[in-house]
């Protein structure tokens, strides 16, 4: 299952090294830095969960088992905010 951003449901901007994402449904803002920012950017690559984790392992040098739960938690937060889609 390919994970993607929920195009049309948010708008975003980069300020300094942070990404600010706003849900167009709720008007809520999310500030993304560090790993969260890396995941958000990687969602543009058309990866599934395993591909996404492999990408982050390559970027941050962490063990897949160590970051998997954190990635899942963040993806759930994105989904809950209406910012994540899958196909």
């Amino acid at each position: 299952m390919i994970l993607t951003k929920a195009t049309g449901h948010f708008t975003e901007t980069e300020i300094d090294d942070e990404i600010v994402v706003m849900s167009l449904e709720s008007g809520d803002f999310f500030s993304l830095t560090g790993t969260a920012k890396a995941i958000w950017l990687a969602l543009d690559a058309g990866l599934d969960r395993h591909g996404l984790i492999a990408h982050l392992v390559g970027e941050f040098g962490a063990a897949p088992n160590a970051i998997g739960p954190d990635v899942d938690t963040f993806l759930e937060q994105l989904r809950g905010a209406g910012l994540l889609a899958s196909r």
Partner: protein
Amino acid sequence: MKNTCLHDHVASRLASEIRWQYGEVPHGIAGVHVPPGFRCIADGCFLLRCESGYGYLYEPGRGITIERPPNADPDEEILWLNGSVYAGVACLNGFLPFHASAVAHEGRVFAFTGPAGAGKSTLAAGLGRFGFPLFCDDTLLVDLSIADQVLAMPGHKRLKLREDALAMTGATAVQPVGAETGKHYAEPLAGSIAQSLPFDTLVFLREGPELTWEPITGAARFAMLEDDHHTQEIYAEAVRPTLAEQFSMRARLAGQLRMARLVRPRSTAGFEASLAFVADRIREDAA
């Protein structure tokens, strides 16, 4: 030069729209009744009915009509005109108002914002003692019509200070504002600026035990722009931006303005110390 010409055009359009005359003002617009103490912005027009009986109507291309009640108070009249009415007309003509007082330095604008009573006017006026001319008092209008620059419009309000603030800032009292306000119209020590200038830094005033100046970075700049509720309300009523448009404007301001948080003790001694401190920060930032 091109930017300057464009801005001059925008500024002169606002000057034209803000002209006023006396006459009858309706009690509603666009089918909406506006009772005393309320305002309405609809169809590009602005209607304010004050509890004192004053009425203000702005219509595009026709300027402002002021209805005076019996026993009209000229001080009240100018306060409404330069306050909510001016802000509403400015918003309807594409300007964004900030609740801020500002000084100019090296051709750029440094503005101080905070809630009522935070000391915006006193700080900006007091910086006159360090050679900084006043740029505006209480309301700062911003022109966003030029993509790569945030331009600030010079102030339209006369500086108003209380007796104690006059002594602290070195400003000269010109005349009382009104019997009930306890304030005086005043001339700042280093004069004032009457031309539009690039907006450099927005400083958020906070009270605290220790004098600090903390640059605001990243998404915090974006979040801080939510602080200015009063002027944002008028802008939202006038322009009715979508969420995406609001986001875009705030992203632009967060990207193009420097921001800082000034924490200072609220005391005469704290004020004295903060003046020299802030003057140094502004000079450093401009260098």
